């Protein structure tokens, strides 16, 4: 079980995490969503004991990684954002080294390595130098090292980032197979990945937890979300759209270009949102540059969470 209790992290004047609390029960998979700079990697680094929090604490199966590192980290496998590989070692040498670090008994290492290498599809690569591997295989070796010692808790930081579609499918399938009986927390930008693999989702935005719900409860509001980009004043547009029929919420999304406003609008299902927005913008002489319904429940929830 992973328990994060009121964790804050400050780098000089920058507050990377603010009072973050979450729990991943045994055998469950938690997906950590957030934009770049949301604090995901910092949080995962704190969970694994690589960084110390400014306030709060983390418990891995009841042990604090900073105070009782040997107990806490014995059951921890970590795949950081950049796999920690020694380029001058072969795949087999590297995994043997990591197994020894994770206290696998010497006699058990060969069988343990065979199992991990088979699981991660590295059989043909085991004699290759790590420095000669492609990005996809480096990621696989990173995942393989996280499995050394057969840890109960896996922390994976964007495990599929930078991979091609085939590799992404393979890594996801591997994580799905591993999730049986393991406690997993992983960060991702990919909403469909989180939906496929997780029992629970946490959305982190600017260092704060904006949402923490079981994946099954995501998108049960029955609302229709419209995403549109309009040229005009944000203040005027938000105020005007708030008075449309059946509107539940209007929020401006970050990242729009100058003179443009990106809006997320939530409507009752019967409200004819496109027609109303078109009519209003036409009356206000504010050209609509893009408009689309957002059919993805998780995407709607994510956009709403980060725009609040």
């Amino acid at each position, binding site marked *: 079980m992973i328990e994060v209790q009121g964790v804050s992290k400050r*780098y000089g004047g920058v507050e*990377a995490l603010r009072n973050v609390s979450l729990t991943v029960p045994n055998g469950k998979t938690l997906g950590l969503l957030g934009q*770049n*700079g*949301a*604090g*995901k*990697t*910092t949080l995962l*680094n704190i969970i*694994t*004991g*690589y*960084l*110390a929090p*400014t306030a709060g604490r983390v418990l891995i199966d009841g042990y604090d*990684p*900073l105070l009782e*590192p*040997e*107990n806490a*980290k*014995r059951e*921890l496998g*970590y795949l*950081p*954002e*950049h796999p*920690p*590989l*020694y*380029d*001058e*070692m072969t795949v087999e040498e590297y995994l043997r*080294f*990591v197994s*020894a*670090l*994770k*206290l696998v008994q010497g006699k058990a290492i060969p069988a343990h390595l065979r199992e991990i290498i088979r699981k991660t599809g590295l059989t043909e690569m085991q004699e290759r130098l790590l420095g000669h591997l492609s990005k996809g295989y480096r990621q696989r070796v990173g995942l393989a*090292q996280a499995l050394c010692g057969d840890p109960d808790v896996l922390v994976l930081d964007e495990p599929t980032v930078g991979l091609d579609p085939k590799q992404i499918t393979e890594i996801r399938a591997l994580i799905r197979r591993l999730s049986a009986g393991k406690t997993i927390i992983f960060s991702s930008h990919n909403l469909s990945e989180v939906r496929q693999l997780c029992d629970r989702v946490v959305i982190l935005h600017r260092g704060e937890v904006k949402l923490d719900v079981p994946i099954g409860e995501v998108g049960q509001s029955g609302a229709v979300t419209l995403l549109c980009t309009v040229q005009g004043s944000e203040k005027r547009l938000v105020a005007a759209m708030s008075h449309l029929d059946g509107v539940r919420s209007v929020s401006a999304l970050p990242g729009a270009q100058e003179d443009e406003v990106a809006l997320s609008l939530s409507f009752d299902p019967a409200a004819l949102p496109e027609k109303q927005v078109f009519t209003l913008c036409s009356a206000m002489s504010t050209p609509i540059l893009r408009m689309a319904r957002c059919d993805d429940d998780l995407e709607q929830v994510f956009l709403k969470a980060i725009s609040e």
Partner: protein
Amino acid sequence: MEGGFKVTTVFKREFMAYFRTPIGYVFIGVFTALSGLLFYLNNLSTLSGELLIFLSQLTLLVMLLTPVLTMRLLCEERQRRTDQLLLTSPLSLWKIVLGKYLAAAAVMGIAIVLTNVCTAIIALYGTVYPGEWFVGYLGFALQSLAFLALDMFVTGFTKNQVPAAIAAFAANFLLWMLDLLADKVPAGFPADALNFISLYGRYEPFILGQLSFASVLYFITFIAVCLTASVRVMDARRFSQGGSA
């Protein structure tokens, strides 16, 4: 012996890494070649059988070259982000630092052993007294290990290897020269303190063929303090360093 086992694991990887990259070969090659040159200038060309003088002159080489061995130990791990593997494993910082230090010491040990070719040449054409040989090499080895420990501590502050090596060389030079500096400050506590710390001052009895237990104890304490400081630097970084979020 779980703890010892884990130190051995780090030691083996680090030692192997020296010889999977050019660093180990370059260090041993350059050290051996330059020590051969010093031996030629001091002993062969002057027909001198003075082993201890030869060893004392090797100190300059050690000061110059130990940063090459230590610059990769901590800062390269940070640069390549492989420290995330070590620091999230069930391994104490002490064992990580000790394993790495012993690997660098082992490479240094090979270089020191190879200088005995010069001893053999002296023995072939003159006389090498076993006691003198023992004391000379003990002092030389302890001083080399002290420089390694100091450099490991200094290079732990940065993740860029070139500034790390330059800073380590500067630290070596400063500590070695402290006794000269002591002559320039007022007599009393400052001068005594500088003389006490100076690595050259501590090495001097060995050059004279004297086995100084005070110096042996000093070098061992110095090494322990530097390694402890390296551990503290790594530990403090958990609280200060930034993530990529």
